[in-house]
């Protein structure tokens, strides 16, 4: 099983825009090769997590080893890497691609090329992949395979003449896909006798096996009992299990060059495994590691606080458990005057943030308050010191700040012509700089540089609404640039509420300050005293609203028979107050606070 000669191995990824049929095609390939019996088969088998299945998105890269008897009479080992389908996880896509030699580019024949199609295909080209275009959903009456082929050639510059036309849903021409994999994608290269070099593709925590490491062997062999060394850290482990995914985990004797599989080696936490690292043999180590890839860095940060302060420990434990399985997610303890004890957490993007939050509430039963997401700013102080700012509340006084840099992205947006105007207006409002504006068939493709800060809030939602859902969007990080940024503090009743502070470009400061003050005025119910709500840059107030005092709140009748009831009610109210967050002596109901943080700042 493992002595597969290199020429009978194909490692490939499937890349596609979301909903173009990647998971469905994976299902068909698994079925067609008999990897799972009909009874074991369910839709989107590779989407393991509940959230993945529910949202129809793939979060974690998945892999499966298929065995295919081709028309040439040979039986091939096909290692399929299913990649995540969302920009937040673009990084995971890149590492899956690093473990393969070729990609199937799935394009929905009724939709055509979308933003993610482009982003992913460029990544595959960069990874040196051979690419086979696959036109999916040709069963749909709206399918226009010829037009889409033309698009692929025009926009991507890839020959689509031999594109494989399929319907993943009905199973039409799955054989054609398998044959294309075997005949058009290259086999891996590698030396069985050379010192071991295996790429650490991913790792996760399994409650039975401990840390499971997904590897792709370049040279040499991985065997049970072998002492391996992580080349970046020098840590040494003894392999307990070697196996492949069929997609069930199945142990094998060893893994040779070109193969994809897993090992376990009594590794305690995923933090001990560095994705992109090279694994070698401890006794006969390789001289040079594989190229590897940069570690993922969180680009969006926010504070997570338990609604009930007593849940702090539980939150800590839950974060630790999540982190076991998601090394791209970071957290560190943080305290807020307004919210108490919590954690500052770093994510790959907004979807990642949402997913972690959802898992915390769903799998761990935690009720959380999340502060507004912030990107990472690079601050240079007047004394030359540099710092990364993850939380606007930590912004040093402007008098000691020499420069602030903010992260930018390069965004690709595809949109039908009639909505282009609205999309361009949106990008310009968000301080976008147009890089390119061309046409892909009858749709416009706008490439923009945008500050990430302008995107993390509600850019997706706005984009969807201004384009009536027709725009597709993808982005990649595009470096840092100095910018005229200011910290806006929100003062409730004269006291700054740290959790509401945010960064904005000076040109937007007043507008945003006013918007949040107005919103808070709406959200905070009238109270005993009138409450000023202010937005300030340093000591300068840039916006102000006042919540007037409530007009009347007194029990009309209160006699001897009412004393007990009234006192008990009062005691209950006092108890309830204790659980409310105090902001400058003002109780803001949980719901209002959450709504304030959710809003478009």
């Amino acid at each position, binding site marked *: 099983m493992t002595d597969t000669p290199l020429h009978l191995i194909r490692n490939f990824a499937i890349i596609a825009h979301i909903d173009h049929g990647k998971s469905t095609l994976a299902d068909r390939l698994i079925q067609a090769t008999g990897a799972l019996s009909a009874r074991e088969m369910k839709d989107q088998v590779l989407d393991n997590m509940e959230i993945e299945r529910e949202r129809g998105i793939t979060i974690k890269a998945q892999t499966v080893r298929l065995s295919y008897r081709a028309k040439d009479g040979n039986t091939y080992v096909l290692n399929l890497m299913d990649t995540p389908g969302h920009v937040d996880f673009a990084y995971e896509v890149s590492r899956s691609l690093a473990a393969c030699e070729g990609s199937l580019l799935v394009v929905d024949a009724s939709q055509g090329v979308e933003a993610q199609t482009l982003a992913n295909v460029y990544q595959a080209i960069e990874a040196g992949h051979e690419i086979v275009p696959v036109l999916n959903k040709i069963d749909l009456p709206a399918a226009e395979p010829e037009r889409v082929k033309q698009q692929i050639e025009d926009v991507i510059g890839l020959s689509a003449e031999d594109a494989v036309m399929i319907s993943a849903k009905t199973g039409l021409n799955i054989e054609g896909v398998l044959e294309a994999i075997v005949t058009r994608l290259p086999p891996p290269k590698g030396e069985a006798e050379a010192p071991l070099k295996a790429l650490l593709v991913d790792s996760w925590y399994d409650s039975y096996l401990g840390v499971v490491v997904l590897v792709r062997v370049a040279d040499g062999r991985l065997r049970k009992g072998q002492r391996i060394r992580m080349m970046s850290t020098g840590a040494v482990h003894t392999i307990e299990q070697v196996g492949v995914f069929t997609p069930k985990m199945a142990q094998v004797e060893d893994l040779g060059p070109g193969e994809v599989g897993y090992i376990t080696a009594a590794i305690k936490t995923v933090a001990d495994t560095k994705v992109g690292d090279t694994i070698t043999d401890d006794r006969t180590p390789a001289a040079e590691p594989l190229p590897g890839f940069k570690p993922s860095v969180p680009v969006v940060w926010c504070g997570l606080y338990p609604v009930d302060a007593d849940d702090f420990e539980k939150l800590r434990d839950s974060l630790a458990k999540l982190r076991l399985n998601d090394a791209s997610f970071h957290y560190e303890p943080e305290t807020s005057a307004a919210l108490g004890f919590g954690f500052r957490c770093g994510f790959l993007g907004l979807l990642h943030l949402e997913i972690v939050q959802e898992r915390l509430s769903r799998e761990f039963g935690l009720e959380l308050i999340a502060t507004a997401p912030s990107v990472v700013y690079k601050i240079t102080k007047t004394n030359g010191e540099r710092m990364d700012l993850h939380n606007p509340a930590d912004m040093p006084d402007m008098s000691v700040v020499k420069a602030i840099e903010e992260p930018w992205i390069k965004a690709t947006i595809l949109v039908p012509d009639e909505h282009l105007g609205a999309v361009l207006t949106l990008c310009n409002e968000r301080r976008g700089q147009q890089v390119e504006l061309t046409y892909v068939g009858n749709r416009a493709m706008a490439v923009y540089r945008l500050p990430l800060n302008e995107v993390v809030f509600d850019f997706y939602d706005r984009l969807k609404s201004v384009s009536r859902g027709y725009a597709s969007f993808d982005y990649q990080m595009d470096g840092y640039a100095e910018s005229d940024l200011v910290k806006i503090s929100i003062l409730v009743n004269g006291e700054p509420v740290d959790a509401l502070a945010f960064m904005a470009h000076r040109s937007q400061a007043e507008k945003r300050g006013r918007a949040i003050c107005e919103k808070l005025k709406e959200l905070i119910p009238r*109270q005993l*005293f009138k409450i000023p709500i202010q937005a300030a840059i340093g000591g300068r107030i840039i916006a102000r609203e006042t919540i007037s005092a409530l*007009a009347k709140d007194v*029990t*009309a009748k209160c006699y001897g*028979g009412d004393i007990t009831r*009234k*006192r008990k009610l009062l005691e209950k109210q006092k108890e309830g107050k204790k659980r409310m967050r105090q902001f400058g002596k003002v109780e803001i109901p949980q719901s209002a606070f959450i709504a304030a943080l959710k809003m478009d700042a």
Partner: protein
Amino acid sequence: MTEEPLALYIHWPFCAAKCPYCDFNSHVRERVDGARFARALLAELEHEAARAGRRRLASIFFGGGTPSLMDPDDVAALIARARALFDAEPSLEVTLEANPTSVERGRLAALRAAGVNRVSLGVQALDDSALRFLGRRHGAADAVAALEAARALFPRISFDLIYARPGQTEAAWRAELRQALALVADHLSLYQLTIEEGTRFATLYARGAFALPDPDTAARLYDATAEEAARAGLFPYEVSNYAVPGAESRHNLAYWRYGDHLGIGPGAHQRVLRAEGMEALRRHRGPEEWLARVERDGHGTASAEWLTPEERGREALLMGLRLAEGVDPARIAARSGLPFEALLDSAVLARALEEGYLAWTGGRLATTPEGRVRLDALLPALLR
């Protein structure tokens, strides 16, 4: 400290019909064995008098329910017995709540003869359609007639009105109130309509059958009420009670000043400061259950507990701050057993003083009209 005089509350739990807004302990029965209930009230009075010892008595209040439906002889017997068991002050105030139907109007003379010297009439509105909405069994003309009859008989009269009714404008309320003030009483209880849990109005309101004025309108109506009353020489001495100075309800003042009061009858509450502390006592609510217990045990007490000093402080303040006269720190300390300062959040106190919700006058802490109208919001923050 000389022991303060007692206030005595006697509850009559029956009504001819249940009003849709009312959550008082009132019940409608086809037949009421009035004499038997009166005997039980007397028995419970004996029981409490024995526990209280011989003390001075400042007021008696017959509340309900509809005590004007009692047999005046029973009322007379209860008053006489109370006078015998306690040292009645010469100024003893004996109030009885009366509904202004023609039936009850006919008994006013007998009630006066029984020893009642003050009536509180449940007029509720001077508008027939409003009275129908409130489910009352009398019209505006009945109310006026009852008031006139009462005026001829009783040295002191008060009546109740309910305002901030659905659709009621400020102008309409001012007109109605002026009409009421012209009927010359020295005391008025003017209540904003409240939707009480478990009432028929609560169901209707939840269903959207009618709407109530919003807080801003209610606040305006409240201000208008004080203005109109002041024009007739009546001043708000409590959130909803207006009187010509000197004509305040002595009995109700005892509650608001957190004084000792006995409570006799179904659902009645009692507070008496004894050597052991403040006793809080409550009677069984169900008239029949209460009756059975009194007949068996001599009293219908459902629960009796000693309040903690903190609870006493809260009760004293939540009642006392309803009064325009406010509270005397020394008295609050004496009634609660804690220093006055220990009962209040000093930061909130300072802010409320600054905001003009509270004021110190002559060594007393009182709510201003601005503070009184927001008292329910102030208390949870102010009290510790």
